[in-house]
C-alpha cells in the first residue's frame, strides 16, 4: 500500500509536536556551533521555548481528539489522548529539568549545548514510545531514550562516579533491551504482526496474521516466555525489581538534573508504554475472553513485582548515607507503588497510576530540586552535609519538608490522594479482594518510608544551625515554592486533575 501525497500531508500535520521538537533540537545543535564561547543558558531558554510550543500544539491536539476513533500518522503513531497525556507530562518534566541544568552550580556555564540536545532527543524517544501501538516504533523510541540517557549519565566523565554510572547503565540497558526485543520477536513469530491492535484482534492487519487469543490456546508456553521477557524490558525502564540494580548507582553518579530526568521523565515513559501495551492487548472490549483472563494472570505477576519492588526500595533507602542515593531507592519504591494500580488490570487502576504519576512529578521534581541547591552549596550529598541548613535557607527547606511528606503519602499533600486512589483501585469490588495483601504491603511500606524521609527534615532543622552561609538562588527557590504550593493546593482542588486523567485514558472501548 503506497501512501498518497494527501495522506502524507495529513500525517505530517498530526506529527507537528514531534516535528517541532526535532527542529528545536537541531537548532540547538547548530546554534551551539555558531555561538562559540558564549553562555549556554540562552540555549536552555530556547529549549524551554520549544517545549512550550510543543505543549501548546499538544494541547490543541488534545482538544481535537477524544472520539472513539483515533487518527494515525503514517500508520504508526496513534494520536490519542493517552499518548498526548504522557507527551505533555514529558514536556513539563523536561522544562523543569532544563531549568535545573541552568541553575546547577556544579555545571559549566558554556559549551554544554549537547546537554540540551540530548535531553530533547530523549524526549523525542519518549514521544515515539508512548504514542505508538507498533512494537517496532516502540523499540526505536525506547532505544533513542536509552542512548541519550547513557551519554547524559556520563556527562561529567572526568568524575569517576559519573563515568561508572554511564558504563553500568549501558551494560544493563543493552542487556534489558536485548531481552525485550527477544520477547517481541517471539510475539511477532506467534502472531505475524507488530501492531498491538491487530494482535488483540480489534483491527485488521495486512498479510497472514493470527490473534493473540489463538496464540495463547495453541502455544501458552511461548506466549508466557514472550510476556515475561517484554515485561522485563519495561521493568528496566521503570526500575522495577528485579531489573532495578542499575538505578542506585546511575542515579547517584549522574549529574543531578539528569537524575531528575531519569527518575521522572524516563520512568513515566516506561509506565506509559507498559500501560498502553497492557490496555490494548488485554483490556479492549473487543478482545476475546481468553485474552482477558490471560491479562489477569499478567496482573498477578505484576502484583508480585510491585510488592518486591516497594519492599526492596524502602528497606535499602533506610540504610543510605547519601540523600541522592536515598532518593534513588525511594524512586524504586515509588515504581512499586505505581505498579499496584497497574496490577489491578482495570481502567480505574490504570487511571490511578496515571494520577499518581502526576503527583510523583510534583513531589519528586521538588525533592531533587532542593538536593540540587544544597549539593551545589556544600559540594556534598550526604545527610550530614545538610545539618542545620534549614535555618540558613528556610524557604527552600520548608518546601523540602512539604515534598517529603507528599512522598510519604500523608495529608495534606497530593501524595496522599495519589496513594489513596491506588488503594481504591486495588480494593475495587470487582477484584474480590484479591489485592488486599498488596494494599497492606503498600501501607506498611509507606510507614517504613516515613523514617528515612523525615531523617532529611531532622538533619535540616533539629541539628545545630550551620556555620556556613549559603548563597540565595531566587529563581530556583521560586520554582520550588510554586511546586510545594501545588502539592498542597492540588489536594484541595483535585477534581479537575482527576477528571483530566480520566479523560486521558481513552485507549480502549469500554
Amino acid at each position: 500500500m503506497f501512501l498518497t501525497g494527501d495522506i502524507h500531508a495529513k500525517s505530517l500535520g498530526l506529527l507537528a509536536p514531534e516535528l517541532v521538537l526535532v527542529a528545536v533540537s537541531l537548532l540547538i545543535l547548530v546554534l551551539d556551533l555558531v555561538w562559540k564561547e558564549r553562555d549556554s543558558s540562552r540555549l536552555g531558554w530556547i529549549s524551554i521555548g520549544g517545549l512550550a510550543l510543543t505543549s501548546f500544539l499538544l494541547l490543541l491536539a488534545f482538544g481535537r481528539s477524544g472520539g472513539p476513533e483515533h487518527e494515525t500518522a503514517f500508520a504508526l503513531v496513534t494520536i490519542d489522548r493517552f499518548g498526548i497525556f504522557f507527551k505533555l507530562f514529558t514536556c513539563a518534566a523536561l522544562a523543569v529539568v532544563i531549568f535545573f541544568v541552568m541553575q546547577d552550580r556544579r555545571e559549566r556555564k558554556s559549551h554544554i549545548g549537547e546537554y540540551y540536545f540530548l535531553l530533547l532527543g530523549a524526549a523525542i524517544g519518549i514521544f515515539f514510545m508512548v504514542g505508538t501501538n507498533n512494537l517496532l516504533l516502540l523499540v526505536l523510541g525506547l532505544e533513542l531514550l536509552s542512548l541519550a540517557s547513557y551519554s547524559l549519565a556520563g556527562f561529567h566523565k572526568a568524575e569517576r562516579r559519573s563515568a561508572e554510572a554511564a558504563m553500568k547503565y549501558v551494560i544493563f540497558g543493552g542487556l534489558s533491551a536485548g531481552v525485550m526485543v527477544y520477547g517481541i520477536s517471539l510475539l511477532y513469530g506467534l502472531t505475524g504482526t507488530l501492531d498491538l491492535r491487530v494482535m488483540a484482534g480489534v483491527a485488521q492487519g495486512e498479510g497472514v496474521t493470527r490473534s493473540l487469543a489463538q496464540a495463547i490456546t495453541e502455544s501458552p508456553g511461548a506466549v508466557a516466555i514472550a510476556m515475561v521477557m517484554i515485561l522485563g524490558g519495561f521493568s528496566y525502564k521503570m526500575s522495577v525489581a528485579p531489573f532495578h540494580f542499575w538505578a542506585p548507582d546511575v542515579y547517584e553518579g549522574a549529574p543531578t538534573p539528569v537524575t531528575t530526568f531519569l527518575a521522572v521523565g524516563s520512568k513515566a515513559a516506561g509506565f506509559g508504554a507498559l500501560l498502553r501495551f497492557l490496555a490494548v492487548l488485554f483490556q479492549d472490549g473487543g478482545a476475546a475472553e481468553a485474552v482477558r483472563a490471560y491479562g489477569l494472570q499478567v496482573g498477578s505477576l505484576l502484583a508480585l513485582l510491585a510488592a518486591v519492588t516497594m519492599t526492596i526500595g524502602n528497606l535499602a533507602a533506610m540504610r543510605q548515607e547519601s540523600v541522592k542515593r536515598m532518593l534513588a531507592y525511594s524512586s524504586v519504591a515509588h515504581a512499586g507503588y505505581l505498579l499496584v494500580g497497574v496490577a489491578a488490570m482495570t481502567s480505574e487502576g490504570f487511571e490511578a497510576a496515571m494520577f499518581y504519576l502526576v503527583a510523583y512529578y510534583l513531589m519528586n521534581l521538588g525533592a531533587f530540586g532542593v538536593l540540587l541547591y544544597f549539593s551545589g552549596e556544600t559540594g556534598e550529598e550526604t545527610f550530614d552535609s545538610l545539618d542545620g541548613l534549614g535555618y540558613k535557607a528556610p524557604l527552600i527547606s520548608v518546601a523540602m519538608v512539604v515534598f517529603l511528606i507528599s512522598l510519604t503519602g500523608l495529608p495534606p499533600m497530593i501524595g496522599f490522594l495519589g496513594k489513596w486512589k491506588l488503594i481504591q483501585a486495588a480494593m475495587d469490588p470487582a477484584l474480590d479482594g484479591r489485592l488486599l495483601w498488596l494494599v497492606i504491603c503498600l501501607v506498611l511500606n509507606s510507614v517504613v518510608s516515613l523514617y528515612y524521609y523525615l531523617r532529611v527534615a531532622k538533619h535540616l532543622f533539629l541539628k545545630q544551625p550551620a556555620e556556613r552561609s549559603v548563597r540565595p538562588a531566587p529563581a530556583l527557590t521560586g520554582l520550588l515554592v510554586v511546586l510545594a504550593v501545588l502539592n498542597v493546593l492540588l489536594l484541595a482542588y483535585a477534581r479537575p486533575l482527576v477528571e483530566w486523567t480520566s479523560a486521558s485514558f481513552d485507549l480502549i472501548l469500554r
Partner: protein
Amino acid sequence: MANLLFYLMATLATVCAIGVVVARSPVVSVVSLLGSFASLAIIYLLAGYQFLAAVQILVYGGAVMVLFLFTIMLLNLGDPAVIHGESEPLFHHSRRTLLGLGVAAAVGAAGLIAILRVAWSAMPQPAELPEGGLDPLDQLAASMFTHYSLAFEAASVLLLATAVGVLVLAKRNRRPTAEVFPRESQQPATPSSPPTSTPSAGAQGQEVAEEGVLS
C-alpha cells in the same frame, strides 16, 4: 544438500559464538566473531534472504569487524596473561558459571519450545524460492519508505543522538576540570572527602597512554 549445509553452518556459528566468549586473546575472539557472522550470512542465503546475507557480510563482516580489529590493534590489547605476566582462570566462580549456563540453557530451551510448538506444526512445505529471493530489494525499499517511513526517520534521529552522545563522552575537555567546578576548587581539599572533581591518578595515566597512541 541444503539441509546438510544448514546444519554445518549452524554448528559453525554456535562454535564460533562460544569461541568469542572463551578466547583469551581479543584478536582470536574477534576472528571467531567474524566466523560466526559469515556462517550466519550463509544461513540467511539458504533461507532465501539474499539481500540480508549481503548486508550481513558488508556491514558486520566488513565495517564493524574492521573497526573492532583496528581498535584492538591500536590500543595494543593482547592476551592479558602475556601483558600482565599472570595467568588467571577465565571463570572464577564455578557457581556463577553454572548459574549463567543454567540461564542460557533455559533461554535456549524456551526458544526451542517456541519453535517446536508453533513453527513445526504449522510449518509450510518447503516451496520453490521466488526468483529474486524472499527479500527482493525493491519490495524491501518500498516497505521501508512507505509503510515504515516514520520508523526509518525515527532511526535517523536515533543515530544522530547517538553520534552526539558518543562525541560528548569521547571528546577531551580543553580546559582543566578545576575550572569546571569553580566552587569546589576554592575550598581546600579535606582528606576525609574524596576528591571527586579532580581526575584520579589512574585516569590521568590512561590519558597519557592514549596520547602516546595517537601521536
